[in-house]
């Protein structure tokens, strides 16, 4: 038996708990029936609400807490130093820690189907889609937890809340789309005519695949199994392709924005530690390309397809007339790309000069100043030239300003990240 599944069986299951859940659910349904007087409809809605509670809210909490508990009890290293495969560890931990909530969710789904007045096809669609939404939300919670743990090897309750919230919000957004979708035909994705619900279901299955793959790669990484970043590269490519199709034009800016958003997300989650960049430049200087592939951060890997896409975009958007940007839209894309690189430089510099616990707050503060306070101030003072110099706008000035800032930061950061940059020996403090 899977060790994590077995451990959770020992902890979660007792006859008492197995009997208690159906009794509580039965009481809830009976109360709702008494209050509404409409058994089938009330039961169906309550079952859906119970499913959201069990499979999304509670399960995401349990999954994010499971890793926090491992770190708190110092048991995670036991898992890492063993023979278990990343896949066994992943599904064992995932299913194991959410076992009891899936028990409740399954009971809710049975009642939902039994009380439904919809067709069999719609019921099957709802059932599969809701399970996918729940899996996606749970996967996101675990993904955020693992990514934050990878960054600084400490997990606190705040991280668990953040991971839980990310999982719940993403799942709720998707499940809302599922419940509001209609069984109609549409032509929105690359001008393909498709059934709306089929498209949603296929999209959900694909999202689940990526979130599972992401978790698998992060666990592999934590077990010291080398990762080359190919999965992230493929995911960015997929995001570019998937998002671009929604705008109906062959190369829409939506794909680019999605890829840039992913790069920003990874920059925040992964950070840009000078020690890692230094190790990377050292390996490049020694032509150790396998090691280079392992050490390259995801935000950097994502820039390769995004950069290629940017070139295509620049040459295909010149004559488009979109919103008020007209012909200068391509400058906006270029500036966005360059400002991202500037932000990487600033994050690297902050992580070099600040202690790890404070660097997150400093990075957040920097983003608030650059992207909220200063634009608001410059707009209020009608200093549009200055505004173009700090955030991406569809103008040449933005591109030049971003390039100048990028070069300045690269000049400052280079001594810390150049190959074989010397480190001072350890301070006499406990790590």
């Amino acid at each position, binding site marked *: *038996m*899977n*060790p994590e599944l*077995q*451990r959770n069986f*020992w*902890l979660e299951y007792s006859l008492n708990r197995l009997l208690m859940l159906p009794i509580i659910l039965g009481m809830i349904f009976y109360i709702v029936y008494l209050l509404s007087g409409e058994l089938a409809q009330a039961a169906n809605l309550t079952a859906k609400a119970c499913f959201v509670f069990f499979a999304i809210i509670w399960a995401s909490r349990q999954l994010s807490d499971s890793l926090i508990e491992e770190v708190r*009890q*110092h*048991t*995670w*290293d*036991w*898992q*890492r*130093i*063993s*023979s*278990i495969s990343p896949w066994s560890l992943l599904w064992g931990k995932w299913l194991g820690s959410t076992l009891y909530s899936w028990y409740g969710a399954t009971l809710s789904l049975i009642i939902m189907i039994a009380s439904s007045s919809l067709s069999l096809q719609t019921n099957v669609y709802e059932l599969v889609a809701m399970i996918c939404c729940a899996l996606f939300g749970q996967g996101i919670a675990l993904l955020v937890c693992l990514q934050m743990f990878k960054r600084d090897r400490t997990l606190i309750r705040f991280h668990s809340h953040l991971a839980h919230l990310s999982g719940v919000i993403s799942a709720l957004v998707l499940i809302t789309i599922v419940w509001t979708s209609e069984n109609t035909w549409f032509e929105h994705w690359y001008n393909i005519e498709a059934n709306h619900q089929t498209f949603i279901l296929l999209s959900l299955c694909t999202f689940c695949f990526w979130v599972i793959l992401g978790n698998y790669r992060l666990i592999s990484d934590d*077990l*010291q*199994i080398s990762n080359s970043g190919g999965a992230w590269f493929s995911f960015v490519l997929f995001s570019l392709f998937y998002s671009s199709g929604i705008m109906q034009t062959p190369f829409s800016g939506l794909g680019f924005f999605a890829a840039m958003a992913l790069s920003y997300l990874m920059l925040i989650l992964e950070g840009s*530690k*000078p*020690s890692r960049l*230094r*190790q990377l430049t*050292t390996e490049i200087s020694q032509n150790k390309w396998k090691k280079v592939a392992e050490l390259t951060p995801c935000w950097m890997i994502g820039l390769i397809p995004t950069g290629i896409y940017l070139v295509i975009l620049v040459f295909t958007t010149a004559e488009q007339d979109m919103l008020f940007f007209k012909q200068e839209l391509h400058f906006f894309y270029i500036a966005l790309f360059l400002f991202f690189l500037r932000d990487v430089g600033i994050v690297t510099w902050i*992580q*070099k000069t600040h202690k*790890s616990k404070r660097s997150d707050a400093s990075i957040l503060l920097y983003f608030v100043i650059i992207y909220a306070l200063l634009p608001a101030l410059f707009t209020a003072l009608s200093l549009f030239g200055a505004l173009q110099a700090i955030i991406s706008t569809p103008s040449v000035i933005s591109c030049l300003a971003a390039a100048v800032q990028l070069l300045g930061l690269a000049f400052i950061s280079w001594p810390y990240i150049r190959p074989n940059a010397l*480190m*001072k*020996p*350890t*301070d*006499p*403090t*406990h*790590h």
Partner: protein
Amino acid sequence: MINVHQLCFDYENKRALDQVSFKLPRQSITALVGANGAGKTTLLRCLSALEAPTSGQIRIDGLNTQEQPRQCHQKIGYLSDFFGLYEELTVQQCLHHRCLLYGIDPIQPRIDETVELTGLSSRLHDRAGHLSRGLRQRLAISQAIIHRPNLLLLDEPASGLDPEARHELSKLFLLLQSQGMTMLVSSHILSELEDYCDHILMIQDGQMAGQRQITQLEQAQLCLQLTTPCQRLDALLSQHENISDIHIDGSQANFSFSGDLQARQQLLQQLIQEGMPLYSFTEQQLKLQDVYSQLRGEQS
């Protein structure tokens, strides 16, 4: 068993390990010593393939920890300074879970063998969270050795244990050594390592400060005491082929002696024949503290 070459490990703003190189023989028990923050825990974590070094190479039983980390994990048992126990599971369940993690089959005979070794046979159904510190320590060691690793890495294993528990721990380590296990034990309390370690490895500020085999030194240190100082003693000892590192302080002489018991008896006989006013001829037990001081002296 362990071969470390030019190992470096960087934290964000400091180098924790700097060009560390050493080799450890099979079936040895080595004391890893150094001040707090010297890099002992980082070194153990790199050796256990839990952390990837910035540069350098580690080979455990011929396996490269960076290229074959999962194979290395099967050969290594690691006990961190926090025991890391699932508090709500019983001893039996903790060990069962560990067996599943290593794919051990059949499970129960292995659990029985292990608890027999660590003295936990009567505690199988107690919850880990309800055990005393000494017993928790034993459970953690049981978890670390249940897959029969070739190498056991222990980080501050005896901290917080009472003298009785420490003595039991020493006996357990010697027993594991006799069964073929190699051990590297980190501590900054030297007295607790003295009972079982046969090698010492010292790191200071992330760098190798020295490595010695303790048992050889123990056998070699002799001390002579005369009733009155004698001028000829230095010349007499210097001529002897088995003697080195002579330190004469008034009527007392300390030196290293490489011969066997018969050679010692001949030396004593010779000294008496030469008319030395000898009243004491003893072997000096070199304490780990002395070796540590010697290594520190060499380093400075």
